């Protein structure tokens, strides 16, 4: 069994305690484990609608509502690299600190992407059977590029552009991640 699979099984065992299974079926547990990750700082456009969550109560306790105080807005200049334009080519040479292994701003760019030296188009990937079938996205998204990297494993970077404005259903997205998770990572 591959090390990743072992870790996955380990996680599953941890969640499948009698206490958890009392409240969740196996699919819910899978969904909990296979929750997609998002970058902490997202890109937004003017005119977009966003939701800001104020947590009032969680397992840590109840928030004192009277103590909530908003700070004035702060504007800063973001780094030039973003998730679409980032390339770590040459970054290693610029940094003098040899201990440093991650060169990107991890709040904006995935550190996994930073570890990739070279991306190439999916049609040049040797083990074609490992590639994902992206037809799932077709009616709603236009696939701009499907880049691959990795020698013994596959790391994918898919650039999608929505064909029209709208709201994407969460269950649809979850079904996709549920079925394709192993291929995505």
């Amino acid at each position, binding site marked *: 069994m591959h090390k990743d699979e072992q870790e996955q099984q380990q996680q599953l065992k941890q*969640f499948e*305690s009698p*206490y*958890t299974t009392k*409240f*969740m079926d196996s699919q819910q547990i899978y969904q*909990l484990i296979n929750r997609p990750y998002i970058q*902490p*700082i*997202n*890109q*937004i*456009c*003017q*005119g*977009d*609608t*966003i*939701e*800001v*969550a*104020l*947590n*009032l*109560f*969680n*397992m*840590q*306790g*109840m*928030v*004192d*509502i009277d*103590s*909530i*105080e*908003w*700070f*004035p*807005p*702060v*504007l*800063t*200049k*973001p780094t030039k690299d*973003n998730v679409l334009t980032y390339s770590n080519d040459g970054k290693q040479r610029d940094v003098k600190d040899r201990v440093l292994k991650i060169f990107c701003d991890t*709040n*904006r760019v995935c550190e996994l992407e930073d570890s990739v030296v070279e991306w190439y188009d999916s049609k040049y990937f040797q083990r074609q059977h490992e590639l994902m079938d992206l037809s799932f996205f077709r009616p709603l998204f236009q696939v701009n590029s499907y880049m691959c990297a990795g020698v013994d494993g596959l790391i994918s970077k898919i650039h999608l552009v929505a064909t029209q404005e709208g709201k994407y259903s969460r269950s649809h997205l979850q079904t996709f991640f549920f079925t394709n998770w192993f291929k995505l990572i």
Partner: protein
Amino acid sequence: MQPEQQSILVQKPKRYIKFGGDNCMLEPRIVMTILEYDMTNFRKFLRLSPNWHHLVLEGINERMNKVEVDFVNKYYEHLFFKKSYTNSSIMYFGGKRGIRVDRILVCEILDQRESLSPLSKSPANYHLNNCLKASFRYKFTNGSQNMGSNVNKQQGGVQGGMSIQKPKRPPTEYCADYKMDVVK
């Protein structure tokens, strides 16, 4: 001959305790006080009756009004406050099941150019191509830190075994940040 006894049946009035309902209206602020005391049962309060459902949500609405007004006053140049709502979801941590309750503020990112006249200078806080940070500070209420566990100290729950009383410390202040890059 025995005198006829008058059979006057005196019915004892039925007494029952009722909170909320058609003929027993509660104020949302009272419900909010109960909620702040026992938020673990938030979802149960919502399901008690349609009236309770309304009261719970209205209570949070009223209570959060001050926070939302503060948000609008500070962020009106960048974010247009559209609406807000309360959301709860189930969470699991360390094999334990609990809930989280959030107040969601729905906002639109303003196009600051729209508010400009041809003669006006571009404002100093122009957020295009910048990273906008919205943040707030908060504290947890005293004694609510173990509300999520089985023993609810707020409700007079008793924990088994010897417990060492820790000295009271002022609640720690936390800060939550939301950062976003305005790209277009």
